[in-house]
């Protein structure tokens, strides 16, 4: 028994160095990392670290929650780059890289903070009734809207409330509404997944993936209104919404 604490003492600094940012929590490190980021990284990743899709530079504010990266993973990516991609290796000092990691941890989307208590079981029932036709949680549900399994880790409480009460305020790429009339006269409503000058790729409201050549369409419209219904308080009370978020947050 006497050996065990000794081993832990010996091994823990090494263990920590491989997983935890040694500068974590130091606001000066995050500040300095921010300056370094803007000078060295922002041309590709954007000043807000949200990425530039046209050059495949990913949104770095979402990487922690979406990809479950450790600080060491991010450190290694900055150090070594990504082979075969535009992301080069960097010869910053270790401290500079940890400063960058601090900055990225700082700008990471924190998700829902201060969620009021609610009844998660009731939230689950409400989710099944109102949301699951289009949204998926832990593998259950539809595909017309975004998967909500980790949404409370990626979006703030305020922005989630807005998205439910006013779904057209911000429509994510991949979910922009679209209505086409085909050559045979069929009206197809759905969301745009991709398009080029000659074709479009959409999911129709029956959640069927469909591809069309634009020249074969009679019409193509891009409504500003999201396919998601507006959930006003009369349709979904504030406490009911909190219950749903408690259900989602439990995931």
């Amino acid at each position, binding site marked *: 028994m006497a050996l065990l604490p000794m081993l832990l003492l010996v091994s823990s600094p090494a263990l920590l160095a491989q997983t935890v940012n040694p500068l974590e929590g130091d606001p000066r490190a995050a500040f300095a990392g921010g*300056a*370094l980021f*803007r*000078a*060295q990284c*922002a*041309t*590709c990743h*954007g*000043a*807000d670290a949200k990425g*530039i*899709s*046209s*050059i*495949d*530079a990913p949104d770095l504010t979402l990487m922690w929650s979406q990809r479950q990266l450790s600080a060491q993973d991010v450190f290694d990516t900055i150090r070594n*780059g*990504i082979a*075969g*991609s*535009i*992301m*080069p*290796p960097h*010869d*910053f000092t270790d401290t500079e890289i940890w400063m960058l990691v601090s900055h990225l941890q700082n700008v990471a989307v924190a998700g829902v903070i201060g969620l009021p208590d609610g009844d998660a079981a009731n939230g689950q029932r409400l989710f099944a009734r109102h949301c699951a036709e289009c949204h998926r949680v832990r593998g259950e549900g539809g595909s017309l809207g975004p998967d909500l399994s980790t949404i409370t880790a990626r979006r703030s409480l305020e922005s989630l409330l807005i998205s439910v009460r006013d779904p057209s305020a911000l429509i994510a790429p991949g979910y922009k509404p679209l209505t086409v009339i085909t050559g045979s006269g069929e009206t197809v409503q759905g969301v745009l997944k991709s*398009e*080029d*000058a*000659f074709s479009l790729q959409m999911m129709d409201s029956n959640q069927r993936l469909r591809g069309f050549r634009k020249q074969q369409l009679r019409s193509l419209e891009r409504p500003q209104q999201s396919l998601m219904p507006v959930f006003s308080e009369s349709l979904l009370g504030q406490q009911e919404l909190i219950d749903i978020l408690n259900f989602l947050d439990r995931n």
Partner: protein
Amino acid sequence: MKHILDRLYKVSRNAVCASVLMVSAAASAQSGPDYDDILAGFADPERWLTYSGDYSGKRHSPLTQITPDNVDQLRPVWTFQTGTTTRGRGFETTPLADDGILYVTGSNNYAWAIDARSGRAFWSYRRNLPSDLTYGASAPVNRGFGMLGDRLFMVTLDAHLMAFDRRSGDVLWERELADYQVGYSATLAPLVLDNKVIVGISGGEYRTRGFIDAFDPVSGERLWRFNTIPGPGEPGSETWPDDPEILASGGGGTWMNGSYDPELDLLYWGVGNPNPDYYGDLRPGDNLYSNSLVALDPDTGELQWHYQFTPHDLNDWDSNHMPVLADIDWKGEPRKVVMVGNRNGFFYVLDRVTGELLLGKPFTATTWAREIGEDGRPIVLNDGSQGCVPDPWGSTNFMPPTFYPGLDLFILTARETCATFIPEVPANTPGQSNFGGTVHIDAEQGSGALRALDVHTGELVWEFTYPSPTFGGVLSTASGLVFAGDHEGNFMAFNAETGENLWHYQTGSRIWGAAAMTFMLDGRQMVLIASGTTLTAFALPE
């Protein structure tokens, strides 16, 4: 300006040298093209011997087998897989064609000799690059070989010029252009003139100083260097602070190919952004010869004239574009002009003898400036700090445009973007990029288009729109066709007169920086485009 007699002497001397070389070429049927062959441009329909097909940069082929009437029959003949990727950038090369063989460079300094009939490689080469590349790591691209006789020339991401034997792929020699660890790299297709190989340099995002070099193709000896940022006391240095350190790291990359007028014996080359890119307070002044077109004497590298498109650039709007040379009627007079579609959003026509500005007109919705003043300088309305000017990738970029003679259309890829520039004091660390600030790009406001401009007025004649800002280059053929690529991966053909889309093929990856080339093979017109990791050859059915 060089004396006109010097030029006439040079032209006749070239002719004598060329005829001597032709005799030796006839003695050995296996020899590759000589200077006279490159000078002849498209005269031999089975050859494509230099980056743009000829020295003028028009990228306008005289071939007419593929027409607006039959282009819908165009189909892939083969696809060559390079096995090397450049995620975020592109496969930007233009293959050279001679005697049924394609000479092709790829990303990460791969290269091949490929059988144009089958798409199979004779040899392949891969440079063993250092692991600590600087600019070369973030843009690991290459735009093609230069060729002379049995030699091929390629520049590298660690800033070297290499010569290969075209039959074996063996390396004959290599020369360092500059120290890559400071930030230098090289990506363009060397331009081969009479016994000279001309190259430029990348790295204006680092603390570098741009230059154009000429090398002896046989010995590899450097013949001259033109520094794009003057030294202390040299002409142009008055447009910079009186500080040798700032001049020695003022940027001004030369990373895109130039063009050449053999009659005037002038070399035309675009120069990139000053460094730091976005932060101008450390470099008050116009910062010559950044963001300029320079005309050089190819024998000495001496500057003959320059025109600066974007004085004191704050937006990374390198002027590294293909200068397009044409002889056109200008207000009733025959005129030798050079045309540039610029990253700053303006289309320019200059007299290429004197550098006089004839026309400067916006071809996008740029809010940076809308007109050029009487003094030839832009009337700047928004330096970028107030938002919504063309992004750092520009209103167009290095992807080659085409000029269609007769129709007098300049056809280029236009990018409509909206960016706000946020300057910040830079760190000035050698070996690290030194932008001096950041950019916020509003991705929602991006789109692209293929646009045809009347070169006499700069007016839009036709356009074909794309869903996103595009980097594909353009080729035209004398049968009335335009070939272009888009960011969604389509390789397309258009009616040159009307802009009507006549054909498209989804290549599977964005066409980025590359423009098509075309040549005859066994009586069949081939059209080639590089896209993603593939090079695909198209032709009409046999």
